[in-house]
């Protein structure tokens, strides 16, 4: 089992390396040049050439890639082109803000989604199941920004319960901040909830079709006990997988939500750096996001291995 997990971790590292190549190609080799971006309109051929030399842009691409990767790995992230601030400080701050928001959403969404999914699976095609499934179809079909706008319209503009633009999260004012962040949190929850509910329902239903469940029913075991004791442990593997994938899906949600609510997180930083074509910033943010995403995928696989003994032995 440890061998399998180690192998998965190694594969994850290779994947990250491949992603770094894609990020590098996407941002540096394609048209558009950092020196041009830095100097902008004021560029003369001489200053361009000088800056290219100092930035090492005259080296062949693969050499630049290894220099870039080396710096990245040793923690030398450089500075943002737009304001000259050290990137490690900017990223650190933005990352904490994003994690704060994502955790908040996850803490609310996970128990709710699991409970709703199991309840729908307990009485499939019942009234509760039908209501939940039509509501989830709606939320799956609607883009995040539309959900966000509808929430703002109802709860901020009409009812005035929550602010539509939220402050920076402060750890000292923990609870007031939570209150101010209800709308962005709710948007994220609603986008992720539908997927997890559907998958939990499908996973539990799959297990409920098995022969041993029928056996338990015939023995006279109660329905709640069958679901909690027999079905859930066996449905856990696929559910864990879906949860991890959906937390990854939070990333695209986070980008949109942070822009809508002008929340100072990593997602908005990414969009801002694309708008201003701040290449070093794009690279770092993209790598941080990808590392997060890859680790979630690894965790999902490890979770599946832990939950399903049959997966513990490599073929």
């Amino acid at each position: 089992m440890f061998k399998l997990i180690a192998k998965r971790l190694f594969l994850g590292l290779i994947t990250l390396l491949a992603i770094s190549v894609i990020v590098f190609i996407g941002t540096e080799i394609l048209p558009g040049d950092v020196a041009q971006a830095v100097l902008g309109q004021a560029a003369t051929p001489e200053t361009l050439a000088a800056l290219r030399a100092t930035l090492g842009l005259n080296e062949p691409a693969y050499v630049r890639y290894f220099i870039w990767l080396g710096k990245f790995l040793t923690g030398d992230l450089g500075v943002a082109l737009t304001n000259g601030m050290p990137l490690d400080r900017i990223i650190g701050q933005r990352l904490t803000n994003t994690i704060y928001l994502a955790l908040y959403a996850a803490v609310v969404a996970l128990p709710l989604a699991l409970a709703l999914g199991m309840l729908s699976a307990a009485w499939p095609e019942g009234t509760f199941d039908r209501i939940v499934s039509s509501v989830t179809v709606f939320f799956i079909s609607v883009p995040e920004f539309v959900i966000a706008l509808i929430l703002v319209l109802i709860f901020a503009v009409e009812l005035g319960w929550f602010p539509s633009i939220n402050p920076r999260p402060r750890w000292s004012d923990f609870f007031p901040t939570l209150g101010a962040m209800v709308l962005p949190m709710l948007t994220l929850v609603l986008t992720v909830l539908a997927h997890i509910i559907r998958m939990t329902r499908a996973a539990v239903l799959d297990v409920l079709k098995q022969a041993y469940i029928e056996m338990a029913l015939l023995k006279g075991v109660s329905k709640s006990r069958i679901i909690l004791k027999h079905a859930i442990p066996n449905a856990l593997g696929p559910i864990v997988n879906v949860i991890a994938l959906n937390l990854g899906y939070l990333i695209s949600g986070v980008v949109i939500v942070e822009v809508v609510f002008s929340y100072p997180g990593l997602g908005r930083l990414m969009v801002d750096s694309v708008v201003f074509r701040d290449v070093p910033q794009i690279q770092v943010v993209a790598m941080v996001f990808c590392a997060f995403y890859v680790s979630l995928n690894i965790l999902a696989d490890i979770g599946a291995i832990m939950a399903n003994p049959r997966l513990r032995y490599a073929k």
Partner: protein
Amino acid sequence: MSQTTAAAPTQRKRSKRARPRPDFWAWLGISIVLTGIFLAIFGPYIAPYQVGELVPGASQFLPPSSETLLGTDVLGRDVFTRLLYGARLTIGIALVATVLGFVLGMAVGFSAAEIRGRYDDFVTWLIDVFLSFPPILLALIDIASLSSDLWVLIGTIAIIHSSRVARIGRSVAMNIAALEFVEVARARGEGLVSILVREIWPSTIRPLAVEFGLRMTYSILFLSSLSFLGLGIQPPDADWGSMVKENLNGLQTGAYLSVLAPALAIAILTVGVNLIVDWLGSQSGRSISEELTK
């Protein structure tokens, strides 16, 4: 004699039951999608104004009137007209991108299933790499280096689709490539392209139809989101996502319709596609959990 004639109608009934007609929800989905396609094709001919035209004598964020069915937008343009033009961009781009993604993904996935060996290993690994790349980041990087050109948007969405389609296409094609009629085709000396297109592809249409619907909704949502971020369709053109972005200020002045009309258009269209997907999914017999956990 009489027994056989009596058996015939029940048999016909049974075969009908095996393939039930679309139910109410499926018909609703089909009519929504057909309306969308109709508007995408003929919208600009129905539209009362030009796409960038200011309504004469109108100011911004006017309520609906007989001249402007859905009111005016942030610059005093007709919201209804822009909605019709937006249908063409939103649906057109989503459709082209999804089809391209499918062609690319199926070519990669099917060939991996047919050729196997090293090539298959490499393709599987490459698919995994692309799948561990959050789609929105891929799009942002592409747009940062190549600008929000129409074909960059289409290509990016197509590439995002292709890795997912390739994975599903490969696993579907694996089972088909092992069947006898493909074996026979190989023995007959058919080339790779001919095997992929004439032997494997027709058998995968049913399982992949559901996937096509799911990818189509994803295209619509993704394009709208990019436009909403200001990185998709650039003004003066507008798809439904960028219309929402343009008119955001309308929310503060109470002109909700200029924002809600395009937002609801996106929602109705994607709900429509999803209704068809649900119906197709219940037909093809494969559970949604199988589709999604792969």
